[in-house]
């Protein structure tokens, strides 16, 4: 069950029109491609995607699930928005409530175990290995954790474990952390147990209906078996403009911190179906990822270009992320910026600066010729040039 309903408000104008899991990443992906591909590669073939905020683009993107081989007759991928039940109907109130509202969906498949995921992170993980771990430990719940630097531990939900990785305490953003094992928001539950706790949680009117705040602490209070599953690979929360930009730049490092060429663990994505990209005579492209449909006549360095991006003659793109269909006109300069989908940077315009915060150009925006957009600005319809 993939929780994809959050707004991701810290991504500012990038999530004004789309849900966070639908935000483009890495030249040809969207954030949700990572958990969905992880499911496919782990042999999980029945996936519910819970949507609520701005779901249209996400729904269209998921479609029949074909890019992830999830278009099968028994199972597959299902988009699950909140719906009317009897006379009542309500929005998803929290992560636990969202799952509670879909108990009937889960019961259709009569599972022994349920995997709860979020659509907020870039990582490759074998959920099947985690499930084996869950079964081997006879656990009621298994929570994936990763070790974070001690000085940052107070920003996370921290799991305090005993020597056998059994969770003895959960602390949300502790001031004085006793452990540096941070929850990744990836849970496996034995379904019978989870259903029981979801029902109890729903009956508690004071509850926030949240996994981290309610379900996990309640299970710990009842001395259920909760174990931590250690994960040490690349994992990036792309919840802010800066971290989304950084995660894109990570792909330019040699060696790549996350192996995207691994044929045994492909990250699948919906294909735009465009011709290969073209680098023109007189262009200069270095330290850059470029995908289908791009046409580069200008200079691009240390950047990520998505499908169908055009960089005209004399334009310069540096340390930037240019999302699908955007055009950088003649002589424009784009530095340390994220340009969202189908935007235009007019001739001679200057976006972003060599230092400072990341500048963001919103979906479909046009930057007039010759205009300068300083570092850290976010340009949407409300912006006055």
């Amino acid at each position: 069950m993939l929780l994809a309903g959050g707004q991701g408000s810290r991504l500012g104008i990038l999530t004004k029109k789309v849900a966070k899991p639908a935000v483009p990443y890495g030249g040809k992906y969207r954030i949700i491609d990572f958990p969905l591909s992880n499911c496919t590669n782990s042999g999980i073939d029945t996936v519910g995607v819970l949507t609520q905020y701005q779901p249209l683009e996400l729904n269209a993107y998921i479609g029949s699930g074909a890019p992830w081989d999830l278009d099968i007759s028994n199972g597959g991928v299902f988009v699950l928005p909140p719906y009317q039940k009897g006379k009542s109907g309500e929005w998803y109130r929290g992560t636990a409530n969202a799952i509670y509202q879909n108990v009937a969906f889960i019961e259709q498949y009569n599972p022994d175990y349920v995997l709860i995921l979020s659509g907020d992170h870039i990582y490759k993980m074998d959920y099947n290995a985690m499930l084996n771990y869950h079964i081997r430990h006879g656990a009621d719940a298994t929570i994936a954790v990763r070790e974070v630097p001690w000085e940052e531990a107070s920003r996370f939900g921290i799991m305090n474990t005993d020597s056998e990785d059994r969770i003895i305490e959960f602390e949300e953003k502790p001031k004085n952390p006793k452990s540096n094992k941070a929850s990744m928001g990836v849970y496996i539950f034995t379904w019978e147990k989870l259903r029981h706790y979801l029902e109890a949680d729903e009956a508690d009117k004071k509850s926030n209906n949240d996994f981290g705040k309610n379900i996990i602490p309640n299970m710990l209070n009842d001395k259920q078996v909760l174990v931590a599953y250690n994960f040490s690979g690349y994992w990036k929360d792309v919840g802010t403009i800066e971290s989304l930009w950084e995660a894109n730049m990570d792909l330019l490092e040699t060696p790549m911190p996350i192996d995207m060429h691994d044929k045994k663990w492909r990250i699948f994505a919906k294909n735009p179906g465009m011709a290969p990209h073209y680098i023109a005579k007189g262009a200069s492209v270095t330290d850059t990822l470029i995908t289908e449909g791009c046409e580069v006549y200008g200079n691009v360095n240390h950047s990520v270009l998505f499908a169908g991006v055009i960089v005209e003659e004399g334009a310069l793109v540096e340390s930037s992320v240019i999302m699908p269909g955007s055009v950088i006109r003649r002589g424009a300069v784009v530095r340390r910026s994220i340009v969202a989908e189908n935007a235009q940077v007019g001739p001679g315009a200057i976006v972003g600066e060599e230092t400072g915060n990341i500048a963001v150009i919103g979906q479909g925006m046009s930057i007039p010729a010759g205009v300068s957009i300083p570092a850290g600005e976010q340009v949407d319809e409300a912006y006055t040039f």
Partner: protein
Amino acid sequence: MKDVMGIIYTGENDARLRELTVTRAIAAMPVAGRYRVIDFLVSSMVNGGMKNIGVITQKNYHSLMDHLGSGKEWDLHGKNEGLHILPPFLTRENVGVYPGLLDALRSNSNFLVRSKQEYVVLSNSTIIYNAHLDELIRYYKDTGADITLLYTKDPSMKRDEYGTYLSLDKSGNVIDLEVQPTHPAYDNTYMEVLVTKRELLRELVDKAVSHGQHSLDRDILLRLVQDKSAKINAYEYKGKSWQIDSVQSYFRFNMDILDPKMRKGLFRDDLPVFTKVRDEMPAYYGVNSHSINSLVADGCQIDGIVENSVLFRGVKIAAGAHVKNCIIMQDGQVHDGAYIENCILDKQSVIKRNARLIGPEAYPIVIGKDVVI
């Protein structure tokens, strides 16, 4: 356009493509960085509204089947209709090798009989085009012809000894055909694409084959025109097209497509070209790489110099390597210090350290699949 089915014949003579067609049909030739020739034909048919498409295969059809699969990428995986791959099989009169297109159609007459559409578009697979076939079909219906042929006036498509050329009257009716003339007299090159009624095609094929005839152009079209026993007209395709039937023409097509104008003529927003997806990550250009005038597919890693070249998916060009006027197919590698010019590298071939390979522009060097130099 649910009333039109498509048939693509892929059994053409491919001797002039040398090693490139040892393991594949011309229709399965990799082109333009991520496509196969047949992608353009199937996509044109799908864009023209056809949902029932048969691909008649002859020899070496494994790579074609592998590429087309269930037809999913072209939305051709319907319940009853969709994509049908029609490999040769033994019948009383057929020993498995088709002497010509007519024999192939006769062998697969069951497919024609069982289909429900009233009309059929029949296409060869050695010409790359991206046409509005719905316009061809509308013209056919509006003019009340028995058969309408697709043709082009593009002079580069007129070649001695090969092909069929048309003479037309003022209202577009075919008044004469030249089949494989040494020096063609007419400027209208028949693109080996026609539309007719399904029943009529079946009858014509039956009649011709039972008289020991093999060639559609010579034994059916030419005869009908000479006898004046059918109304055959022609519809002009004004877009760009390329014949892929020799190493030179294959090389030329890929080099032409580097020209942005030519490319726009083939890859049009209103006529998307679909192909099998490989889920490679975007191409990476290294810090000291240098690339100009090149078409590059996903999954490539370029650290060296690339000029005027077409790189297919997953190609690696090492630092210190130099590639000029080359076509490098899927997963090819050029190592440090190697220099190659006017070469066609088939899939997975490797040019090792410091090797030098310079072919003449008019006769590119062909390096076979999996070859290491």
